[in-house]
């Protein structure tokens, strides 16, 4: 038995919808009869045009009036629910704004949340979600004990985005019950060259084994030569060598490239959960006992300060 209605929190990434949004609506379509989204971006017509072919029948637009999205989007959803328009399930991506809306909504509805999931199933009307813990070594399946709507969030790349279903989505303005008090006064876009970390076909990540912050340039050089994206372990993000947006792992990005190169990364469970879905893994680490070698297709037990320059020179020389 499928669910009657599912809502998805739809988000922009640049000038189009985020990949995560399309992944979620694709999955929602397979679980529910009706899929609707809440959208607080600036191009509702564009979002509707993109979402219709993915089986979405309605786009509720939320005017956040320049505030962070948590309060206005959650209050718009709660207002619909109070008026009797109640979905069985509300799906969020594990994103900055997704987490804000999810947290606020859970208080407004007094409902528990299940976050960081990688899969979902519906059996006899009961929603079950799967979360990978301990670096992906253990799979935990959970369910809710309270009534719908159930609130869930998913890691990126849990599902594959594919069009299908209804062709047009209706755009409807949703009333905002409560305006947000946290106002955005300026936006800054940090220019970045090359492919985006969580969409790149090849990722080169560096960790504490690099020794100091200056050495991270080797990771950037290699990534650029191979047309990949540079990434990082949590240890060097915490150390302030690179921004949080470079972080691969449990509390960072989930990447699934064709090739993942881990240099000077020991393979803490925190990191592994973010990259073990890569098609192939190459690891360079001086400690032969490093856990990263247990999942590497090719492991070089050696000094990154020797191997990386040799590798970079050899590729440059081709």
């Amino acid at each position: 038995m499928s669910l009657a209605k599912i809502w998805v929190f739809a988000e922009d990434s640049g000038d189009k919808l985020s990949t995560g949004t399309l992944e979620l609506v694709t999955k929602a379509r397979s679980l529910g009869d009706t899929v609707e989204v809440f959208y607080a971006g600036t191009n509702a017509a564009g979002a509707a045009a993109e979402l219709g072919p993915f089986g979405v029948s309605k786009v509720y637009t939320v005017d956040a009036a320049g505030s962070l999205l948590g309060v206005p989007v959650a209050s718009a959803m709660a207002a619909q629910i109070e008026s009797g328009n109640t979905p069985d399930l509300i799906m969020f991506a594990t994103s900055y704004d997704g987490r804000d809306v999810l947290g606020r909504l859970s208080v407004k509805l007094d409902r528990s949340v299940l976050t960081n999931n990688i899969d979902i199933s519906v059996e006899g009307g009961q929603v079950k979600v799967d979360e990978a813990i301990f670096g992906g070594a253990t799979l935990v399946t959970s369910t809710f004990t309270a009534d719908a709507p159930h609130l869930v969030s998913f890691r990126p790349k849990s599902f594959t985005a594919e069009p299908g279903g209804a062709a047009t989505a209706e755009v409807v303005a949703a009333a905002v019950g409560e305006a947000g008090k946290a106002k955005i006064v300026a936006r800054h876009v940090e220019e970045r060259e090359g492919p985006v970390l969580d969409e790149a076909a090849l990722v080169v990540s560096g960790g504490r084994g690099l020794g100091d912050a200056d050495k991270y340039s080797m990771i950037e050089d290699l990534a650029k030569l191979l047309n990949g994206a540079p990434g990082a372990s949590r240890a060097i993000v915490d150390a302030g060598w690179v921004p949080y947006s470079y972080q691969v792992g449990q509390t960072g990005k989930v990447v699934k490239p064709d090739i993942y190169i881990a240099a000077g990364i020991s393979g803490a469970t925190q990191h592994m959960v973010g990259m073990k879905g890569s098609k192939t893994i190459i690891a360079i680490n001086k400690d032969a006992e490093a856990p990263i070698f247990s999942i590497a297709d090719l492991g070089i037990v050696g000094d990154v300060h020797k191997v990386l320059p040799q590798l970079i020179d050899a590729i440059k020389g081709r």
Partner: protein
Amino acid sequence: MNVVVCVKQIPDPAIPGQLDPQSNFLKREGKLILDDSDAYGVEMALQLVDAAGGGEVTLVSMAPNNEASGLRTALAMGAAKAVLISDPALAGADALTTAKVLAGAIDRVKPDLVLTATEATDGYTGTLPEQIAGILDLPSITFAKKIEIVGATVKVDRQTEAGYDEVEAPMPAVVSVTAGVVEPRYPSFKGIMAAKSKPVDELTAADLGVTPGAGQQIVSVIAAEARQAGEIIEDDGEGYLKIIEFLEQQKVL
């Protein structure tokens, strides 16, 4: 200015985690340490109080037992006092219940600002800051890279996918601090000695009028399919050639 920092004491993340076979809850017995993620919030709070020229930092934490060794670490860094909600009935509490407990304790302190990490290292639900703000009906700004107080306004550089946003909110407010944005101080010997006598008030869920529980339950736990290791070689000065060969096979080169 008075700041509350929500901190969590967790099992040492360097030791592989385990689930209790009966309850399926994460085992949290024995010595707990201050979650690394929280050291940034504590440091940020100390700096903000310093910059404001007065006030104090209060820690608020929840634990299923009365373990306080992690709190002592943060007190040694310079926090003035701590409130520990320790209650065996809170074992297995979900994020919303945890938020109700922490919000109840924060409401007694009535601070100008509440700081949290973006998520805990052991459970990482990641919704707590927003839930606390929702319960206390306060504005919130998540993923702060930088925090500045100007009058009764908190100004934050907030991490985004594309870069960062400058966001402002009236205080009191809840702000979650991204890891790595400040350098947490090491407790001095003097700080460690002073921390031993700093007050740690213990409360129960009942003191705060919160009913322990969880709106969710685990239905199964299984081992995920293990990934097999491939070829591991010792670098003899030509290990890089193996990588070149691998990249050629994958048609990257």
